[in-house]
């Protein structure tokens, strides 16, 4: 962690997260003492609350992709959902910097939070059903995102949707079809188009390639890398797939039972894992 903190002099920090915690249940004073990797559980023995994430801290810089890796239930999605305001954290802070303005994410009211998420964040979920409305056309889904950020010109919306869909290699001729007619990979591309509609400086990707076949996975990952290069979008990639982490992420956090057990440069973590869990994880994948 120390070598990461040395980067504090950089001016292009997008997000700074400090001690983010999320507890499901009423919580007690023993919650954090009796859970975690060393106890092999995230359920508090005293009150039965689930400690989904505790003391998650990291920095994210412009154009950087940060990977969050861990088994299911390790709290990686919870951390991202808190940052996208899908869930409310129990404690912690997150500072988002944008155009020399800074936003203390968890001190804003819910209207301000939604406004910020609508205008500056993008989210791609594992399941397209979460990110897309299947009752409206692919173009309509992208339009919704644009309309949320006050673009109210019909032809401008059409032009932008066409541009985004061709960028993500969905045939623009199929723009007016319902997403349910599309294959899983195409649905995911539409979801990415929707997330990119407003050129967000920060993009969250939650298990975007899980459940897709290998060639489609490769194409989606290529697309994500291209977007990173073109737009300098900062991204947080949540996955349990080491291949995805290796390909995308510059730096990685490894989580288990709600705690960050290891963090650093991705190469370092994959080549020279320090924590026993990470070692097992890397070994099992190779």
């Amino acid at each position, binding site marked *: 962690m120390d070598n990461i903190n040395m980067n504090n002099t950089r001016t292009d920090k997008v997000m700074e997260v400090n001690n983010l915690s999320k507890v499901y249940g009423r919580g007690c004073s023993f919650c954090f003492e009796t859970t975690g990797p060393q106890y092999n559980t995230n359920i508090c023995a005293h009150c039965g609350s689930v400690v989904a994430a505790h003391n998650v801290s990291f920095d994210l810089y412009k154009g950087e992709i940060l990977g969050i890796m861990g088994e299911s239930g390790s709290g990686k999605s919870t951390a991202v959902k808190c940052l996208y305001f899908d869930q409310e954290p129990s404690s912690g802070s997150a500072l988002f910097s944008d155009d020399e303005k800074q936003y203390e994410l968890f001190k804003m009211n*819910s*209207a301000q939070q*939604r*406004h910020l998420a609508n205008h500056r964040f993008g989210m791609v979920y594992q399941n397209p059903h979460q990110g897309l*409305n299947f009752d*409206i*056309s692919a*173009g*309509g889904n992208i*339009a*919704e995102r644009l*309309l*949320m950020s006050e673009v*109210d*010109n*019909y*032809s*401008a*919306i059409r032009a932008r949707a066409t541009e985004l869909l061709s960028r993500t290699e969905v045939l623009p001729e199929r723009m*007016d079809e319902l997403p349910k007619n599309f294959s899983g990979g195409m649905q995911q591309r539409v979801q990415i188009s929707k997330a990119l509609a407003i050129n967000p400086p920060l993009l969250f990707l939650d298990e975007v390639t899980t459940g897709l076949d290998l060639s489609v996975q490769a194409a989606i990952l290529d697309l994500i890398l291209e977007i990173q290069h073109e737009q300098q979008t900062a991204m947080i990639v949540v996955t349990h797939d080491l291949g995805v982490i290796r390909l995308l992420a510059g730096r990685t956090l490894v989580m288990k039972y709600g705690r960050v057990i290891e963090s650093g440069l991705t190469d370092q973590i994959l080549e020279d894992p320090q924590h026993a869990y990470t070692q097992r994880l890397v070994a099992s994948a190779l």
Partner: protein
Amino acid sequence: MSTAYPFGFLDEYAKKEIRRTTLKAVAIPGYQVPYSSREMPMGRGFGTGGLQLTLALIGEDETLKVIDQGSDDSVNAVNLRSFIEMTCAGINTTTKTEQADLIQSRHRIPEKVLREDQMLILQVPYPDPLVVVEPSEDKRKVLHGEADYSRLLVKLYEDIVKFNEITISHRYPTRINNHYVIDSSPIPRWDVPKLHQSKALVLFGAGREKKIYAVPPYTKAEPLAFEDVPFRIENFTDNNGQRRSCQRCDCTTSFLDEFIDSKTGEKVYQCSDTDWCNSQINLKQSNQSVTISEKVSEVAEVSHG
């Protein structure tokens, strides 16, 4: 009846609550104010919201007009009017728009422009425009609070994609005073622009859904639309590009109803607002009689000369 029920059928507490709700609705233009809709001696959905507003707001010596589908003589209008006459001793009723202090209506706003001293009460079946895009009332309240109507605009977008135009015929979502979007009740698109900067107070009562909202006088009312696909009202042009006219009064500026002539089987068009239609006929007749009397006097002058 008058011995068993107080003036206006409702008890004083009920009337007070409705008046207080109305004041709040006027103070927050377009906001749906909840109220405890009372049981009325007719089924909910038959205009109980509008009826309760009328009963709470009408006073002795005031004049009421009740219309349904633009007509004073349809069953619902006649029944509502006679109920109010029975329970409000000392009020007058009329079919003439210009004579009315209060106008209760459901499907139409009268063609004749309303004045500052008049009040329009609309019966509303579905008060919330967001109900078509968000089933949870909890979430709808948040969307209203934040003026987030992007999903309604997506619906308009989908309409244009599919049909090349916005196909909403009535209940057109309309933004009031730059914030709240209201369901404009089942009035046709034709009547929506009449809400904008209206001189008369327009009140909306939804009895079944227990909501009252208002468009106060001189308030902005903008139908939702896109910058480059503007809102438009119904056009009544025939295949030759001619504006259709009312078969009774020949008016070419009113909202027309289409129906099939039972004898000839042809489509015919007639003013939907019967009072407007009648007044146009009267106007024409008096104009004719004026021209006749002018001609008579001209002839007289000539013969004198």
